[in-house]
């Protein structure tokens, strides 16, 4: 009997979560024997050669050289002609369990909505990691993704590195693409703290080019499309080519919003909480949704589902790529609760700890492109949603008030809608409502 056997990437260290495929020693069609070295991998700790657990013919390599693979993922498929008695018995068990798992998934799927793609994210890939799932909860949601691996996996620090920092902090800096040597340390012993790294990451290169590299010698570079970039691409294509997008813009005098933000920052209730114009924007959108419910809905081809709650999505540029986590039931939150939720969401995203559950079931999204210093854009809808709003940069500009040119804090609100659901009149009213709050936040007292 011939059969396909898979070799899953093992944890060759103690608690490693991933490894990079360095080089394959076999190719499809090759005959392999038990314990023959088939691949070299590199973990956070070392280069390791992996021996094949079974004999047979290589049917497929399931990871490319250079790929980073999660522990537990199939890396090679081997056609095995005969399995030993022990291996065969454990195989039957595995097949039995697999059949049961398939049955479970099937029965779950029949009562649940079609799974929504998250806009992007490592969540998609990590959902297949071999974590156990709590029963009665949609599978994907229950998976906890800890993109920052355990803290004991730090590579040896190069000699000559004089910066003081604990290994987890070094790891965090590495994950966030922050050069720890350039972080200003504030620790008691002159060490770099978590807060220092987080602060540095806010000005990290993902938000702004900080240096101009030397011109490269090669004329072209080829970057494999994989991981989060692949997920972003497929979600964008799906969204852009299924939903007819319509975008509208409005300029708005946000001076009072800026004053309101300043007052909130100074108030005792908001002490220690981060208050930004995005908070007022979020409140404005939630308020406007109540007045224009159609923008907070989902198109399913057979019906339009109007959501009478707001799972408020925020597009976040993280060092690992763009992700859109959302704040569940944001409409039930007070200003203070919403401020804390936004701060938490940003911190979680920046640390790479956003879970697939955090990115599921959003109803409307804001993208704060103003932090990049640009005025507006035409955002693409997060799949499953029909509205997305872009908040541009807010800066002093000439503005006409009572026939006089004054210097006001001006911004542009850009918004995109799914025209299958939202027509121009509703879209315009919604954007006007959002703009009116930005102009006069007192409307929120309504």
């Amino acid at each position, binding site marked *: 009997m011939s*059969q*396909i*056997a*898979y*070799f*899953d*990437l*093992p*944890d*060759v*260290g*103690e608690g490693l979560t991933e490894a990079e495929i360095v080089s394959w020693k076999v190719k499809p069609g090759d005959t392999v024997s*038990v*314990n023959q070295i088939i691949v070299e991998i590199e973990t956070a*700790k*070392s*280069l*390791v*050669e*992996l*021996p*094949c*657990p*079974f004999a047979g013919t290589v049917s497929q390599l399931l990871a490319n050289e250079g790929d980073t693979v999660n*522990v*537990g993922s*199939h*890396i090679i*498929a081997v056609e095995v002609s005969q*399995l*030993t*008695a*022990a*291996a065969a*018995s*454990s*195989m039957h068990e*595995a*097949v039995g*369990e*697999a*059949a049961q*798992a*398939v049955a*479970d998934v099937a029965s779950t799927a029949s009562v649940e909505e079609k799974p929504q793609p998250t806009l992007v994210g490592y969540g998609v890939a990590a959902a*297949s*990691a*071999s974590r*156990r*799932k*709590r*029963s*009665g909860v949609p599978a994907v949601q229950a998976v906890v993704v800890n993109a920052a691996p355990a803290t004991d996996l730090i590579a*040896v620090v190069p000699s000559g590195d004089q910066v003081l920092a604990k290994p987890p902090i070094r790891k965090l800096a590495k994950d966030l693409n922050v050069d720890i040597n350039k972080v200003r340390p504030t620790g008691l012993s002159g060490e770099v703290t978590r807060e220092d790294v987080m602060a540095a990451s806010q000005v990290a290169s993902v938000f702004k080019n900080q240096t101009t590299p030397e011109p490269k010698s090669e004329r072209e570079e080829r970057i494999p499309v994989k991981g989060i970039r692949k997920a972003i691409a497929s979600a964008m294509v799906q969204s852009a080519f299924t939903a007819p997008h319509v975008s509208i813009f409005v300029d708005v005098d946000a001076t009072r919003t800026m004053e309101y933000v300043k007052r909130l920052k100074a108030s005792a209730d908001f002490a220690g909480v981060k208050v930004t114009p995005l908070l007022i924007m979020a409140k404005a959108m939630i308020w406007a949704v109540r007045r224009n419910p159609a923008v907070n809905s989902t198109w399913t081809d057979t019906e339009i589902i109007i959501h009478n709650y707001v799972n408020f999505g925020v597009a976040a540029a993280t060092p690992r790529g763009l992700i859109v986590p959302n704040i569940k039931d944001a409409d039930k939150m007070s200003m203070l609760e919403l401020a804390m939720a936004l701060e938490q969401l940003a911190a979680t995203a920046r640390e790479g700890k956003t879970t697939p559950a955090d990115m599921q079931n959003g109803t409307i999204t804001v993208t704060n492109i103003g932090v990049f210093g640009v005025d507006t854009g035409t955002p693409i809808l997060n799949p499953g949603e029909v509205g997305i709003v872009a908040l541009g940069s807010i800066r002093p500009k000439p503005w006409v008030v009572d026939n006089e040119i004054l210097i006001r804090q001006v911004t542009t609100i850009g918004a995109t809608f799914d025209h299958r659901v939202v027509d121009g009149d509703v879209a315009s009213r919604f954007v006007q409502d959002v703009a009116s709050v930005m102009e006069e936040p007192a409307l929120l007292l309504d």
Partner: protein
Amino acid sequence: MTSPDSEIPMVQLLTLDGEFSAAREYAEYAELIRELREADFLKFYRDMARIRRFDNEATALQRQGQMGLWVPAVGQEAAQIGSGYGVGPNDHIFPSYREHGVAITHGVDLMSIVKMYRGANHGGWNPHETRFHLYAIVLGTQALHATGYAMGLNFEGRVGTGDPENDLAVITYFGDGATAEGDISEAFLFAATHNTPQVFFCQNNQWAISSPVGTQTKVPLYKRGEGFGVPGIRVDGNDVLACYAVTKKHMDDARGGKGPTLIEALTYRIGAHTTSDDPSKYRDSAEVEYWKARDPLIRFEKFLRNQGVGQDFFDEVEAAGDQLATEVREATFAMADPELEMMFDHVYSEPHPLIEEQKAWLQGYEESLGGHTPETPGDDSVSYGGTR
């Protein structure tokens, strides 16, 4: 490069070419070898080859996701097999975590070692049956356990009576790294002052993970006990006959009431510290080559061939090794996961409310997970690897 310092005397009975040759001052050790029969020599070789084959298979199984960790002992077979057979059948052995070779000299089932490193239990052999106590993962603690046990033998009058049925001794194994732990010094002190029936067997494999022995001590390790009153001797740890003879002599002496001895076996860890370690990051390949040329199996094979042992024997040993590897592989794949409740069973000998509460909580938690859901493809296939 770390290599044996030729100025330091060391008991060696086999030259690198496998010639039996004892310096005059080691005549009493050579005498013990003359009492051995051919079957004993063959047994030494068979067990060294067997444990090396097992070790390599276990390393492969770890790389295939079948064990959480493996601690290879390749290169230290002579120190372990030789000393293991130098220990009397009723004596007690307190190992560290790398003494797979010593384990097989006292009837420990190899699969119970695999079981432990797979995480299926905390050491599945019964020390009352094998006299080989459980592996000590915490460095150096076993020396104190051993010394305490040896003190107990004194208190019970199990030492120096001259009755072979009654008298016992204790041996404890540790590495060069553990000598830097306070536990070892404390054990020396109590062993010396209580004149315990005990041997401290230090396998100096030159590396405490990535720290060379030179950073662990300024004096040769066999001298470490002197200040406490424990005399020491250095033996060529890659010479199985020397390891056997030196261990046997000092265990016999201990059993006879002559007190504790420290034996430093000079050897080398050919492999990594554990499967989580990459020694190429910190040591020179020339050093590894130096020691590979001193491989204990090669040296003893030369000795046996010099004695007229034929190729048939070596073929038979190799075939037996492959058979063992297959059996270990199959048994590992077939090994069942332990029941979760097991972890609570041996915390207290009697029911304990806190343990009961934790057990109930865990059961509830597990039920909420709805049992184990494997991540498997739906087709007719099988997966190996991943996490155990």
